[in-house]
């Protein structure tokens, strides 16, 4: 557990709850918002990371830009951990999980800044730094005593100049949630469903080795101090996914999550980089090149979309280049598949035994497979044109949300819908291959994978119990 000073006044505010809601309901709503914010941030960070690179980056700066991308991807991975931890807390209080994402409610309390998929620039970076910044008034920076105070104020000014309305820190929401969970009068002990622990997402399953190196202790359990100069903080991601069975565990998990976002390393000298640390470092370095004749990121569209709708708020990002739009549709489809598999793992977690290979884990592996697909497809889309005949602006991965993430009621219907989506992917891949698209090796491999997936799903469907099938 990282040791930090406690930030913020965490008492629940009665005036913020709607009268028709219970406190548990209000808590569930806040957690829902938390999940959506984590999801939104993760996607925006991914977009920014994927935008980095391109031939225009001078060779002498490429190692630095690669490091920036690694930092931002680390943050995105950690946000995924946050998202899963929030789902665990929702599960603990018996509320439904939420994998949805609201792109436009930014004027509601807590949303840090308007959702915007855009290339990494100083302006967008300023928003990220601000969103992850520790609470004003609780840091030595804000009171001007710290040498970095002026710099941070500059960043704040750039971020707030960009945002119309009141920007928020992500930590504000967690302060509210933690305060409410800790309120024993308003959230009764009986609301915490300890038995859900076993079915929550676990680091062991989802962490994938993104944990810090274990500390060395001697036979008596005493920490062995490393010889020589201590290494600086590790740039690797530390994906924290906490399962929670009690009030205290929920508070600790959300506190850790919040601090991973905002606690500055240079303040407390701990050996892990927070999201704030990472964005701050990139900002420091990028600012030196302001006005230079090169950009670290490609000219990808702002809020790319496959929807041709003049009334659509993201219309300016419409991918009119046909090929690019087909790839973008494939991206959206795999994104949808990822979210559905993820939702399915939570449902299956309640019915499988974790001590032997089980279907839930198999679906979990598919979530990771889709992550790899999104990574690959994003790499393709940031090189494709937004509009035919216009080389200047590039497309980018749209991350468009499907019309619903709700799973059908029966297992048969869930699996059938998985199969449908795989079939849709196959059709898009075949269309792309027939139209002479590039990346033929990848499309052929994806088709092969989808073919295997459908066979696998078909086998599962056939094996479902008769009671899980619709009556003849």
């Amino acid at each position, binding site marked *: 557990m990282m040791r930090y000073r406690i930030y913020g006044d965490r008492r629940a505010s009665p005036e913020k709850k709607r009268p028709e809601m219970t406190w548990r309901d209000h808590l569930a709503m806040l957690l829902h918002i938390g999940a959506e914010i984590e999801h939104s941030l993760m996607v925006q960070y991914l977009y920014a990371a994927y935008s980095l690179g391109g031939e225009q980056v001078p060779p002498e700066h490429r190692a630095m830009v690669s490091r920036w991308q690694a930092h931002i991807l680390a943050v995105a991975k950690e946000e995924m951990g946050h998202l899963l931890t929030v789902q665990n807390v929702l599960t603990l209080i018996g509320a439904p999980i939420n994998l949805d994402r609201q792109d436009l409610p930014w004027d509601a309390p807590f949303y840090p800044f308007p959702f915007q998929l855009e290339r990494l620039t100083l302006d967008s970076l300023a928003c990220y730094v601000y969103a992850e910044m520790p609470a004003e008034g609780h840091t030595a920076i804000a009171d001007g005593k710290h040498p970095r105070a002026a710099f941070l104020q500059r960043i704040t000014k750039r971020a707030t100049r960009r945002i119309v309305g009141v920007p928020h820190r992500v930590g504000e929401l967690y302060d509210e949630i933690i305060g409410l969970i800790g309120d024993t009068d308003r959230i009764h002990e009986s609301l915490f469903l300890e038995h859900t622990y076993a079915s929550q997402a*676990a680091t062991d399953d989802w962490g994938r080795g993104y944990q810090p190196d274990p500390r060395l202790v001697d*036979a008596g359990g005493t920490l062995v101090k490393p010889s020589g100069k201590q290494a600086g903080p590790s740039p690797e991601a530390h994906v924290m996914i906490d399962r929670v069975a009690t009030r205290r565990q929920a508070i600790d998990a959300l506190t850790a999550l919040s601090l991973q976002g905002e606690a500055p390393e240079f303040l407390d000298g701990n050996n892990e980089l927070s999201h704030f640390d990472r964005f701050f470092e990139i900002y420091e370095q990028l600012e030196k090149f302001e006005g230079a004749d090169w950009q670290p990121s490609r000219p990808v569209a702002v809020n790319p979309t496959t929807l041709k709708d003049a009334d659509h708020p993201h219309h300016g990002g419409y991918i009119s280049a046909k090929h690019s739009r087909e790839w973008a549709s494939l991206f959206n489809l795999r994104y949808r598949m990822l979210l559905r598999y993820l939702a399915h793992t939570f449902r299956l977690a309640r019915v499988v035994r974790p001590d032997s290979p089980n279907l839930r884990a*198999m679906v979990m592996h598919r979530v990771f497979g889709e992550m790899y697909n999104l990574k690959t497809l994003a790499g393709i889309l940031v090189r494709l044109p937004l509009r035919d005949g216009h080389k200047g602006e590039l497309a980018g991965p749209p991350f468009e949300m499907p019309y619903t993430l709700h799973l059908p009621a029966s297992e048969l219907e869930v699996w059938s819908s998985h199969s449908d989506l795989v079939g849709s992917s196959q059709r898009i891949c075949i269309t792309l291959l027939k139209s002479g698209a590039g990346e033929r090796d990848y499309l052929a491999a994806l088709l092969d994978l989808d073919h295997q997936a459908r066979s696998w799903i078909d*086998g599962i469907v056939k094996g479902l119990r008769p009671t899980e099938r619709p009556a003849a």
Partner: protein
Amino acid sequence: MTIKDLRILPPFAIGRLGSAPEPMDNYTIEDDPDHPLGFRRLAGAPTFVVDERSGEIRETRDGSPEFKQDGRIRPVAPFLEVFAVTADDVLEPLTLDLLRRHELDETKVSWRAVVANRKVVRRTGNEDDLVSADTKWFSGHARKRLEGHCNNFAKSTDFIDFGHVRYIKPTTQFPHIRLRFTPARGLIYGPNRTDGEPDPVIPESRAIYGENKGWLGFGATEPEGFRNETLPPSLYAISSPAPTWLHNNVAISRGYLDDACDGFVEVRLMVAGKELTAAARICAAPPVVVPDSLFVRSLADDLDQAIHGPGVAHDEDDAAVRARAEDIVRRAYETVRFMNVAVMNGNSFKGRQALLLDSMPEEEAAGTQRAIRPVMAPGTVDTLAIMTLHEQVFAALRGRAAPWFVRLLRRPDEVADFTDRGRRKMPALMCGADNNYLALTWRQIETIRKAGEQSLFEPAPETPPPPDKLVPRNLSAQLLYKAAGNPVSSTPVTAVANCCPGLEVDFRAVWRRLLKGIELREYDSLVVNVDAGYDKLKGHRLLRVFPPGDDKGIPVVTRIVGPASSDTTAKMYLTTDANPAGLAPLEWSNALAPILKYKGSRVRCQFTRDEAWELEDLQDPEEGAFIVELEVRSFFDDDTAVISRALADAGELTQGLCSPWQNDYRECSCYYWASARPDYVNVEATPSGLSTGDNWLQKERTGDYVPDDYVDTRLILYDDLFKRWEHWLRIQVGGKDVPDPPASEHKKKGAA
């Protein structure tokens, strides 16, 4: 142009044992464009038909990848071609025409083959147990049998038939100067017993080893003093109940030998009064039972690192680096698909404790005397799912995604990290040459890291990587060269590299004499022999080597770490009474690769202050450690891709392997070489979404996997293999058993 020098290519050719009269046709393995993630396709390739009478190549026909004939396995009999160095950068085939231009003909070419089987010598330490064959120089085109004689055979006329070599008679149609090596039939030889008790396996005609010469009954008495044990220990057919670890580690030899061997073929030619010679290595190895899959780390990978070093040069072609990275990932899932991952993970099986079944976690528990722990969460490990995940990674690489998983690859110096974080690194669940968790070579890891490093910035190249040019200085191209008519199974890409002890060769043996003056044990840093003047080093252990300018040094041992008992975020050194310092040797191929470029130079080497013949003698290895400078030998013979004879003489590359090799297919588990000695076959998905299949060693294919406890009678046992290995080692294609082809016309007619 003038013939300045000669080369034999390939410099390392693998023959494969089998008793069918007709050698294996030429075949290749290719990607299936319709199923790029599926099993590679076996494709017949042009096959030479050698006229038995004249020794000429009579014709070329289309090859057919049929691995058995009348229930017998077809041997792989590789050709070795002679090339001439005619200019600094020119390597051209030595042909009748080139000979004529030098006023020579094919009768002026002479050959010699020297092979040996030192397996018994390795165990007994008695040089009279050496079985060796030498054809002496010859120029004719008749078969030259490789007769393996031994001082300890019952009669001086007794020999082990190691197969034969043949100087192929060149013709106008096939003018290239070449030799063919045909290995033996995979027979087992044994003791010439006079006690009236017939051996259940050895027929009288092969009972040739002298009864009281020491091999029969070896191990019955405790050794006096130090015994230079192999790793794994014993590795020979025993009469005491097998395997040894289930029976108090008692290993009493049955006195068996096999007809595997390794050694050299040489060619000689006088040109303008100057004698030119060249050599190549050959070995006879078990058959490839999974011909359409390749192991994640092959002998070719290790030799590639020996040539290029552990890094990837900055000017290496990006497309070539990426292609290599994709190939590694592909071989990873080709390996995983043959592992029952749940069992290998240390899961219990249908209620049976994992401690009773063989796996890396079980080995780790036994070695460290700690409780067994599954490596990954038990619920997450199903073979088909893990394989699909690997395939997904491969697909991403094909889509030119930069490899993101380099940090998840186990570094070669992390092989004894038994924390969950360490064990879960990749390759997972498999054993390396040092008997700890398998790591790729440094160069493989660096290849993956570098692949796509520039893809963030540069557009991906559209053209495939340029082929390697076959020139005198391109040792890689020479090593991978496939002579005409040779199937891919004769090349190092089909040989495993995590040699503990290995299948084709025990590559650990090559490194023992890399430092002049001492001989290290093949699997750890104990100095077992010394040259004159280095007596003070005998029995000491090498700890570290310091390349010039490097003050930190390269460790050749590491400490075993594992999870702290009561703190899930902590780790601690793991020690036992037998290993109080908790030391684990690091495999030579990775540990010493960085010093190969200092050949001919001296490097500082750190040794333990005291002798430490057993690890239990070593409390604090660093205390009083001292430095000696030693010269690094050349890994390859001058300007060639032939592993130096000074490093390993005839018979030494195979001496650490099982005797007979058939013993290893029963005794070593699949977590060594899953795609070479598979575990999980006929795998299919069930309606539960999980996989089901057979254990490759199951006698009866039921679709119900039988886990291996070494004594289950549903599985093939030792004597089954000794007597009928060609029947029981079932060839796998497409992950499934290949049925035996119908009886040939030859057999149907009942020909003699």
